[in-house]
């Protein structure tokens, strides 16, 4: 089975990212974990596109079977949307930090139950 190292790295990255996403209390750490998990998903898709002895999906680049071009097209979408949503989420984190002076999720939830302190 070829491409085993890429698949193993992709699964490890996704696991690491989701672990940080679930366990960490800081919102910035959560966003970083989400980004690492997205990197793992992207690497996983690229590894899925691999075929034994395949060439890149460009016409006239030598003999042999072509790698699957469809996951590559999906990856292009994933990278751009990942960047855009990360930027927007960071804006929301800046808002929270300015108005509530914390990035701790549990403290935010506690404040929510008690009612927000008046500024």
């Amino acid at each position, binding site marked *: *089975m070829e491409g085993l190292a890429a*698949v193993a790295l*992709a*699964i490890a990255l*996704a*696991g690491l990212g*989701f*672990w940080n996403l*679930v*366990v960490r209390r800081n919102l910035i750490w959560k966003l970083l974990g989400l980004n690492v998990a997205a990197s793992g998903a992207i690497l*996983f898709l690229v*590894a*899925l596109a691999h*075929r034994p002895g*395949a060439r*890149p*999906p*460009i*016409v*006239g680049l030598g003999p042999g*079977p*072509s*790698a*699957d*071009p*469809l996951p*590559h*097209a999906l990856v*292009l*979408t994933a*990278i*751009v*949307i990942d*960047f*855009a*949503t990360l*930027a*927007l989420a*960071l*804006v*929301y984190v*800046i*808002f929270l930090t*300015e108005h509530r002076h914390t990035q701790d999720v549990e403290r935010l939830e506690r404040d929510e139950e008690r009612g927000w302190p008046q500024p």
Partner: protein
Amino acid sequence: MRVLAALSLLGLMALLALGVSGVFPRPPVPPTEDVAAEWGAENVVAAIVLGVRLWDTLFEILIYAMTMVGVKLGLRLLRWEHAVPPVRETPLLRRSADLLLGPIVVFALYIAVSGHLGPGGGFPAGAILGTALLLLALAKGVERLSAEIHEPSLEWVEYGAIVAILAVAGGLLVMGHRGSGYLIAVNVLIALEVGIGAWVVLHRFASSRGEV
């Protein structure tokens, strides 16, 4: 709670490993030369992104533009009391920016124009263009560069690029035109849109905190 998270995480990783373990055989790739030739491309990924799945790419561009607008309006709502300190210039950075700016922009243009023939395309070209603008911002200071390149008209260029992409995509999807020229046009317009959008995000974040 942590035990539950760890268990579900291990389950997820096991599912991913099961997907590639050979239980589900991967189908052989059908011959793609015909698809590429029909859309006027040699890079099959470009033929898929800009041809077969053009609707997907259009909505991706729309989502990207909407997120850029969200970042711009969201950070505008925050009023910052403290003044932004200017970034101190170093001669090394300015000289290297002088040296590197031309090759970076030319490479971005090359990647955008030849995206239908080889590795490349509009999105990487836009990212490279944004990197060139970031290098200039590091060398000159963000606010000075923003005033020099006249950012409001740059944003009009971005919105115009989106409208032009929609027009060309209408030609491709509705009128049924095919050919390499359309792919080159869409790639260059996407590069403009992504590069300017990346610059808008960089500028807003930098001017909110005063650091690049």
